[in-house]
């Protein structure tokens, strides 16, 4: 298994092949954050939502900015394309928890607020999903923190 080949598959949007290669890479080095970050996208795309949520939770517990600061161009992140695919190609049943979870995951790489909205909708339907709850709490805490910092900085500029 080669990380470089996994990167190429990911770059070429061959998510099934990328998933297999990335799993091999993670097996050799379970702390490879870059591979894990990509594997979340592959699992989500390949309809393995529970596995994706689990890894995503580990990653944001360690460093949420590692996901949130992803740049669509500089990091060649496919999430905008995938959001478009989920929202407009009717591949998944609208308003199902899976639909909102997928969007929640993909949006986290591009816009944490949209991600939070989707995870919240998923939680309204699957309120007992423990990983989902933890994930939501982490993103919510981050969001609250960002907002309180914004308010403080606005206050400072008024004073």
């Amino acid at each position, binding site marked *: 298994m*080669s*990380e*470089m*080949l996994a*990167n*190429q*598959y990911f*770059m*070429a949007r061959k998510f099934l092949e990328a998933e297999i290669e990335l799993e091999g890479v993670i097996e050799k080095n379970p702390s490879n954050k870059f591979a894990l970050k990509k594997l979340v996208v592959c699992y989500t795309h390949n309809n393995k939502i529970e596995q994706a949520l689990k890894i995503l939770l580990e990653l944001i517990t360690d460093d949420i900015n590692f996901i949130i600061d992803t740049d669509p161009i500089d990091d*060649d992140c496919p999430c905008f394309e995938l959001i478009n695919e989920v929202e407009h190609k009717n591949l998944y049943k609208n308003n199902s928890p899976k639909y909102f979870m997928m969007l929640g995951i993909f949006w986290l790489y591009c816009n944490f607020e949209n991600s939070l909205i989707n995870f919240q909708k998923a939680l309204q339907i699957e309120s007992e999903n423990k990983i989902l709850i933890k994930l939501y709490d982490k993103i919510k805490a981050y969001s609250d923190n960002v907002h309180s910092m914004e308010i403080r900085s606005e206050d400072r500029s008024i004073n």
Partner: protein
Amino acid sequence: MINQKEKIQDHILDSIGEGVFTVDKTFRINFFNKAAEKITGFNKEEVLGKFCKHVFKSDLCFLDCPISIVLRNNKNIYDFEAKIVSKDGERKPIRLNSAVLYNEENEPTGGVISFRDQSEVEAFRKSLEKDTNFYGIIGHSKAMKEIFELIKEISESDAPVLIHGESGTGKELVANAIQKSSRRNSKEFVKVNCSVFPDNLLASELFGHVKGAFTDAHKDRLGRFELANEGTIFLDEIAEMPIQMQSKLLRVLQEGTFERVGESITRNSDVRIISATNINIDQALKKGSLREDLYYRLSVIPIEVPPLRERTEDIIPLINHFISKFAIIYKKELKELDDNALETLMNYNWPGNVRELENTIEYAFVRTNGATIHSSKLPAIIRNYVSNSSVKSIDECVDKNCERTELLKILNRHKWNKTKVAQELKVGRTTLWRKMKRLGLAEE
């Protein structure tokens, strides 16, 4: 010290004519030489740190990235055809070589691609194609046009085709045209010359072998029939195939099954067979060197490629085609033949057919410095043949074929100026027209 070494390496890579770039393991470009800048139109500064797919915008980046092929197969690739989009949006054909770079732990850490601009070669190929009539075959004669028509008609069929014709008539080009116009054109096209393999190796070549099947069989090997699965196989010089092999081939034709040498597992292959031969088939059948049942199986669609002497109307277009080709290959100006040279070529009987004509034009082309090829620059064998053979008058002809061939020569010599032809034949233009019509030349 390392910096100094790297500078020298960069300098070397900048001085070569091939474009070279390298990527890291995330496929971001980390080296881009001067030739790559020239071919793509991008400056080094514009591309360093960018993903290669964003720079080259090749379909291959998504379908079959050359570096990923090397990563998968552990084998460098050479002369791979691809298209890239240059900075000004032009799609450029290139040929590339690709390799993977490894660290000390033998893990892939990057890739290197060297590439050549093929735009000029492609333009040349297209300009030649424009002059040709059918998938690279030059044919203005009725016989060749009928072959083109037949190839179009059979394009939906998978029936075996047997191409018969003298050596040098272009049987392989006909086979290429059949494959390219068929519905299997996107699949493998495997060619085998049955006469070049010793008897014992041909079976292994066609059907493959398993490890240990014979002394040099160190590992399993796929045969050509397996490689051509779902595609087409071209068996050239089929009549040279040993008789034992012919029965095995017959089985493939009848049942689509075969066994690898040294193995008893029966394998299937869905292959369309095109074969060719230049031998006298009747004689081979009588002699028993070609199995009759195989012949009938192979020749569901027979195609007879006529010798050049029977389609002299193709000589001038072929000459023009070859002159254009050699002008590009030898980077010389276009040349033309003077009337004497043309007459000599028109009166020669071309036993080696189109291949001999091509060789003749190349010979004369390289011997000529000016813009005109004179007959003195033609091979002596051709000049001697023509000067020794008395020019046959049309009146001496005893059959229609001879009459047609001789009239064609005169028409070609006068570039189809009927007044001049009529003058040479000492007949009126109406008589000439009637004669042309009777010989099937009036519309050509």
